[in-house]
């Protein structure tokens, strides 16, 4: 662990305060009164049974959805009060997201998939091109640049997704079960990649079912059960 995080400290990349999310008005909340913070450069694993609210938590941090109650502060700005356009701008600049099923766009090439967030944020193809190539190289998939995602293996696809998530150099990388659809050997590869990124200072929140992955790569594990924070335990430092 690099440093002890203090609630609401200015160095925190994520600060949730009393966050509740109910999908149906009046129904049982998917997430209830959750408060947590993540400091810059930290790796936090989120674990919990299926349906406990992990993805919901991640979506709120990513600005993909809005909480029913509570405040969400990410990269220094309150995002629970932002409108759709401002949220979209926020996502493009400040967070990168990696999904279990990759969520690549099938009708764009690997390179176009990686370039897309940069161009949506207003960068020209040329400006973003160098960064994209650098990332593809770092992920070891530069030779597949002009191929379509359908032709790639699961591990290769997830590398494309990671490159895409990083193209705008976001403060925060969010991963929702990034290894859930991969075999054991590939899980190791992706895990190593994530650790390298963190070593370079990347803040990372990782939702996973895999205790080994959490143990090996995360400094801290947050447990969620039935939408509530159960226990925050220190992981084994990498």
């Amino acid at each position, binding site marked *: 662990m690099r440093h002890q995080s203090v609630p609401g400290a200015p160095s925190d990349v994520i600060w949730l305060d009393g966050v509740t999310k109910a999908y149906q008005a009046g129904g049982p909340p998917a997430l209830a009164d959750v408060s947590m913070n993540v400091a810059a450069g930290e790796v936090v694993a989120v674990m919990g049974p299926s349906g406990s609210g992990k993805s919901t938590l991640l*979506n709120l941090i*990513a600005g*993909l*959805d809005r909480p029913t109650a509570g405040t969400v502060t990410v990269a220094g700005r309150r995002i629970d009060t932002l409108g*759709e*356009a401002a949220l*979209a*701008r*926020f*996502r*493009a*600049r400040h967070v990168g*997201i990696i*999904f279990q099923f990759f*969520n*690549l*766009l*099938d*009708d*764009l*090439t690997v*390179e*176009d998939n990686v370039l*897309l*967030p940069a*161009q*949506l*944020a207003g960068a020209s193809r040329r400006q973003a091109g160098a960064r994209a190539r650098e990332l593809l190289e770092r992920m070891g998939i530069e030779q597949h640049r*002009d191929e*379509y*995602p*359908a032709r790639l293996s699961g591990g290769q696809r997830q590398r494309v997704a990671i490159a*895409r998530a990083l193209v*705008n150099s976001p403060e925060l990388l969010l991963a929702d079960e990034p290894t859930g659809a991969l075999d054991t050997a590939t899980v190791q590869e992706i895990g190593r990649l994530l650790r390298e990124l963190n070593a370079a200072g990347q803040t990372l929140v990782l939702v996973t079912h895999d205790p080994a992955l959490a143990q090996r790569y995360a400094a801290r594990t947050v447990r969620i059960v039935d939408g509530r924070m159960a226990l925050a335990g220190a992981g084994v430092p990498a």
Partner: protein
Amino acid sequence: MTWFGVIRTATGGMLRHKVQAVVLGMVLLTSTASATLGLALLAAGDTPFTRAFAAQHGADVTITVNAARASSAELAATRALGGVTAASGPFSEATVQVQLTGQPFGQRVLAGRSSPGGPVDDLVLNAGHWPNGPGQIVLNGRPGAGPGNGARLGSVLTVGGVPRTPPLEVVGFANSITGTADGWVTPGEITTLRAAGAPASEQMLYSFARAGSYAQVRADVAEVSRALPAGAVAGAGSWLAAESEASGNGAIMEPFVVAFALIGLVMAVLIVGNVVSGAVIAGYRRIGVLKSIGLTPAQVVAAYLSRVGWPAAAGCLAGAVAGNLLAIPVLRQSAGAYGVGSQQVPWWASVAAPAGMLTLTLLAALGPALRAGRLSAVQAIAAGRAPRTGRGYAARLRLPRPAGLGLAAPFARPARAMVTLAAVAFGSCAVIFAFGLHSSLSRAAASDSLSATVPVQIQQSGPGGGPGQAPTAAQDAAVTAALRAQPGALHYVTVYSGGVKVPGITQDVLAQAFAGDASWTGYGIVSGRWYGAPGEVDVNTAFLNASGLAVGDTVTVNTRTAQVTVRIAGEVFQPSSEPQLYGSTQTLPGVARGKNLDHYDVGLRPGTSAAAYIQAVNSALGTRSPWGATTPDISNFYSIATGLVGLLALMVAVAAGLGVLNTVLMTTRDRVHDLGIFKALGMRPGQMLTMVACWVAGPAVVAAAVAAPAAAALNTATVHAMAGTAHTGVPASFTQVFGPARLALLSLAALVIAVAGAFPPASWAARARPAAALRAE
């Protein structure tokens, strides 16, 4: 569970797509309404005439023969001519001036026939009985027709200009489909009715093997003329004139109603096919699941057909009702000009149009539904999962990202893009066509009524007019004085009008003689030019058709007081079945007589208000004058036609917009997950709106490029078809209504339709929460 129960359960989910049901219903409403109207007009247009013509063995040609020049044997011999298939006559004939209770009843052609029947022109007796002795007459038409209250059974007509003015009692009414005579008496009666010195004439009624066009009819007449001694044929009448009089204005609207109906039909088929194949593609997984739980292929087909069946049936029924409502003003228009037509949509049209559209719809749905039925469960589930790979066109377009992505989208789904293209093309074609037709009809209306060039006419209106009481010379002089005294008139011209005789035309030709320059009156010139030198005249198309003459020919005009030889300088646009001729008073002195003074045409200085001018002239003339100033009346045919065109175009445009909405909606549903990814990656709502709008922008531009020239061509063809139905030529200016700038501006209709159709689903996609979109699978 029953067979149908299974289908009901299976379709439960599919019927959730209410928007598609509405789109389907609306498109079918539109096309069924125009189809119903089209059928009604087809029925009202020709069929009653055609049917009556066949039933009554109408005369293709009625030939009037100078009895002094041809013997009965010679006339009988013409029955054997090659082209003749049947003949009646000869019947002796006389043209007489008739009075009814002292009032003029007009000039009538009477024929002597011993019975109403015969191989040609088999008359239908509507009332009373056939004349069985002297002093009896049967009139052509129905009781109550004609001037005044008209003649009825028992009315007594007197014939003027003959000794003892013999009285004729009306004993019956009969109908001649080709109007071979205005009345019939016993054969022996004719000689007593003939004015002293008038040549004895007889009529022969013929059916020919070929008499479909004016040219064929003229050839038929020529064949008979050649067979008889020179000068024997005094005149000839054609069934075509009777037909054009009978078919009226409804028939003239037929071409464009049919054009719109066809556009609606094609669009309905396209959109329905697209809805169903879209549902099949979107439902591949579902088909697999339904089949894996035991639905038979037939049940799957039935499930997909019933998905379109209900909204389609509702749309077709509503369309039939709408078509009937639309038909009311249109058919009333056509029935006005027309004794034979019915005023109602025939019941079979109200049944055939919706039934036909529904059948077509189900046929369009059958293809994709059968495909769904044939698919095996495993295939279907696999097809539902297979990722769709597009090409990298987006990368090559150097456009802002969302626009580039949107413009490239059609390449991933070419079939759907083609439907969008076609719907927009048909819709914008209909809109551009409607604007063009509106311009063409306005020009025709202005040219027909001369309303733009002759905003004011002085016509007989008040006391002193009326039959037989021509205004006095002093009253006429008061008019010219008033016109000179009023400021505002740029020019005026006195117009005389009267019947003249032209060889080769049996009917009277209506001649108008202008006392002074009349080139400013603005008659539409179909070909040639307005008359200049004395001895030149212009004629309408009916004149050329009836006479077989052409512009540049010379013709002898008998003005009753004199014979003048004139040269035809031009053909003017005056749609009418009546042959008309226009010249100066020098050219037509016989017409320019006081009793023929018909009206004054007045052209105003720019900026002069027609209403104010009319008021000023009328107060100067006073209430006692038989003359009054008025605006020329425009036939309400034009306003009804223009309104109908606008309504049909609007319906087609709405249907096209709905078609676009439907394809965009299907695409957003298919791609909802991708849209979620775009959002997760930071695509803003505005950018997404742009992207989805660009899905249709490409097809819309192509559609505009296709629709604009197509609409211009369609307009020209339609105007000519309408003119053909009305037996008139049209000036070239009527169809030259699309300047390049105007056409370019109208092409924007394609973009408007496309964007209006794409906007609702696009804004739905833009507003959707990314988290929800990502969950949707």
